[in-house]
């Protein structure tokens, strides 16, 4: 009996993309550029009369081994990968701050002292954004960056812009958290609750020091030579 699996070009390209993504020295922009090259090569080979499977394997061979490619790319610009990593670490640090602060502010605004909902509100407000963050991290890890986020990941040429956006987000959150804590504190009817709210407000304020430090690092980071004026979309 014949046991032949049908070749699926999309799956094959996806698998190749995963191999590239496994190379820590290849930045997302490099991977995307290589993918457009692979797709161009496949299209041309198909036009010449080869079938999709033959075209894919030939194009893949021509592009080269992912390990060798990574070595060559890192030689050309050794700092490129680190620039991208620092950007994502900063986005992650600010994201975590937003998550913890947003959780605290919302749970206090909706049910100031947990009198009505108990732990459920806390759990819900924590789990939903937390699972969203984990999901996004996994998607980014496997090169499935959602379009709105992809803009951030592919702007290594303008880290100053990204840092400015993050700084505004951080500043607004800190102000919002601080004043909302003060507002709840003033509505509390005993000294213990007032003290707890002030302490919480201060914690939110001081916790902002880490993301703020990462933003400063992005501001000080050496600029990439590329002057891409337009962020790439999916190939």
């Amino acid at each position: 009996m014949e046991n032949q699996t049908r070749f699926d070009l999309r799956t094959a390209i996806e698998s190749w993309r995963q191999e590239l993504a496994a190379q820590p020295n290849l930045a997302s922009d490099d991977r995307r550029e290589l993918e457009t090259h692979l797709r161009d090569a496949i299209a041309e080979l198909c036009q010449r009369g080869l079938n999709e499977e033959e075209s894919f394997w030939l194009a893949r061979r021509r592009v080269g081994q992912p390990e060798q490619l990574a070595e060559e790319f890192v030689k050309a610009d050794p700092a490129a990968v680190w620039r991208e990593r620092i950007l994502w670490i900063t986005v992650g640090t600010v994201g975590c701050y937003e998550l913890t602060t947003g959780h605290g502010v919302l749970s206090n605004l909706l049910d100031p002292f947990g009198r009505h909902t108990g732990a459920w509100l806390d759990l819900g407000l924590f789990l939903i954004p937390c699972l969203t963050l984990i999901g996004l991290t996994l998607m980014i890890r496997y090169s499935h960056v959602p379009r709105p986020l992809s803009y951030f990941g592919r702007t290594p040429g303008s880290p100053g812009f990204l840092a400015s956006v993050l700084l505004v987000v951080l500043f607004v959150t800190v102000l919002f958290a601080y004043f909302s804590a003060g507002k709840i504190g003033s509505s509390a009817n005993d000294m213990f609750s007032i003290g707890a709210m002030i302490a919480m407000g201060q914690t939110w304020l001081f916790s902002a020091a880490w993301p703020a430090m990462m933003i400063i690092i992005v501001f000080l980071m050496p600029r990439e030579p590329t002057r891409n004026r337009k962020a790439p979309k999916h190939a």
Partner: protein
Amino acid sequence: MLAKDLVAASSKPLVLSILADGESYGYEIIQKVRELSGGHIEWSDGMLYPVLHRLERDGLIDSEWKEADTGRERKYYFLSSDGRKALKTERQQWLAVHNTLSKLWKIKPVSI
């Protein structure tokens, strides 16, 4: 087929010369080199990009992601003003080598 060292050394003037005619993308540059050299210069496809990135880092070329007619996006490279100056120097140097060899091999030299 050309020796590896010569292929590597000629990559800069070749890329700059191709881009002097107008913007282009990696795949097209490779195809052009293959076609112009009659298959004598064979670049490994993936290895062109580090060369392009190095030239970009040196400020000789710039890049821009643009949508092609097919609807897919490609990273187009184009020559910068520094790249034009570098191409002029490269041209003089390569022609000097060419003329020296031409005299040795009794072939008509070209004007630099």
